[in-house]
């Protein structure tokens, strides 16, 4: 059982981590609380499904096209909706939630509410230290790790990454460095949508697809982000790992535990908000205005 917890825990927490950093990134930079983040994940998953199962394209091609389409959709949502009401954070939350529900209803109308599945990207399994690990699991974990590493390299090593971090920390001062803040926000939205899409590419074959599949991951990443500290990328990763494993342990070890999946994250969120509202890595910002 221990090895199953380890493998499944890594798969779950890796996916949540990629989703959570994307959510955290756009919140930190553009102050957009994007409730539609996991809906982007769902849209990619369904696009891949349509590509592989209905149109008969190979997985890789469907994946690339779906990621591109999702990024495009995310950018359109940002430019047409979020950006216009950015100053009003509640409006951003409501509008993004509406986008998510709209996506759900459109999928329900076009593809019906049946559970669907995507065939694994790679079949078969490999023996690692006496444990049979599915190639698909390996693909998911390595894909998540590579994505997180890529994001870290982008944020710390490139000029664009420094601009993104500068805007996240002090958007007004970033202007003075010649950084085009609205363009950086738009690019960040693209990256954030791309991260949600990549999470779907690596994890969708493990998930039953249905138009309500955005809700559970949304509560999970909200909890992970609260646990790690709102706006902290590092915190989101650790929050996702902790919750991913907590969820896996409950599902695997507790009889009938799969019904408690969502309860783990919500309980964790409530506990954190009571005990340490700023989260594990959160910074309490003292206001230092003029």
């Amino acid at each position, binding site marked *: 059982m221990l090895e199953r917890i380890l493998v499944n825990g890594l798969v779950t927490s890796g996916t949540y981590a990629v989703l959570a950093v994307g959510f955290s990134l756009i919140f930190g930079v553009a102050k957009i609380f994007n409730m539609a983040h996991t809906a982007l994940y769902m849209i990619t998953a369904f696009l891949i499904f349509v590509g592989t199962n209905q149109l008969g394209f190979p997985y890789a091609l469907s994946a690339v096209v779906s990621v591109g389409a999702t990024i495009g959709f995310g950018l359109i949502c940002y430019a047409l909706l979020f950006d216009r*009401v950015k*100053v*009003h954070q509640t409006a951003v939350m409501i509008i993004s939630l509406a986008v998510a529900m709209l996506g759900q209803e459109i999928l329900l109308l076009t593809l019906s509410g049946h559970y669907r599945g995507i065939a694994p990207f790679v079949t078969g399994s490999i023996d690692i230290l006496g444990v049979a690990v599915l190639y698909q699991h390996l693909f998911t974990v390595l894909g998540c790790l590579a994505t997180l590493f890529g994001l870290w390299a982008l944020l710390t090593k490139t*000029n664009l990454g*420094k*601009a993104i*971090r*500068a805007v996240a*920390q*002090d*958007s*007004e*001062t*970033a*202007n*003075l*460095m*010649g*950084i*085009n*803040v609205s363009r950086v926000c738009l690019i960040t939205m693209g990256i954030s949508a791309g991260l949600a899409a990549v999470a779907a590419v690596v994890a969708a074959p493990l998930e039953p697809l249905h138009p309500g599949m955005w809700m559970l991951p949304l509560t999970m990443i909200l909890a992970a982000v609260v646990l790690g500290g709102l706006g902290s990328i590092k915190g989101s990763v650790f929050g996702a790992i902790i919750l991913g494993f907590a969820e896996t342990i409950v599902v695997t070890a507790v009889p009938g535990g799969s019904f408690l999946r969502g309860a783990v994250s919500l309980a964790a969120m409530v506990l954190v908000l009571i005990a340490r509202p700023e989260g594990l890595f959160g*910074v309490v910002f003292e206001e*230092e205005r*003029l």
Partner: protein
Amino acid sequence: MYLEVNGITVLYDRAMVLNDVSFHVDKGELVSLVGPNGAGKSTLLRALAGLIRWEKDTLKGTTLGKITLEGSVLFGGEEMMRLPSHDIAKRGLILCPERGRPFREMTVLENLEAGAYLVKDKGVVKETIDRVYGLFPVLDKRRGQVSGTLSGGERTMLSIARALMSQARFLLIDEPSVGLAPLVKEDLFSRINQVHGMGITILLSEQDIGFAFDLATRNYVMSRGKVIAEGRADDLLADELIRKTYLGL
């Protein structure tokens, strides 16, 4: 004239912060802008850097965004009021905000690199980093330190260094000496003088009259959103009315 400001007026909702302000700065000058708290010095510098316009655009649709901004700012013969703030920075007119405002979670070196955002040539970036380390050795010592943990004087120096990284030709320095110990002030004073010596034009807002008058070649006195006097330090100090009413000496 290098910088020519004509009739800048700023209203936050119905509160007038700047009332028809006009002045000019020639190339190579170090001009100070003195006056009491609330005179509008910071707002003026922020307007020149395009931040008032940015604030207005960003807060559009809220009560805080009801900002009126009028007037003309010619820098090197080009109108700045129509440009977004990041394009103004591109022209080499750069604001060092009050208290430095470093990017707090980045290290000193990362702050400098962020300052060099506009410079595409890696060689030039390296060269400029060495130059600002020469000018501010304390930043070299703290290069790996997270800038949120710097002292007040170091933050101010970092903001000047960061501005120099983007190849600034004209620095707007907002209240550099605020909250600094006398010895730190002395040190900063000589560093600003050095920066000026490098051929960079400086407009400096300051509440410490002694600091400003010793440093500047020419001064403007501001009060209640207006420029009410202009001149060399001696002339201003000789004027009984200005000395008593506005400088509090």
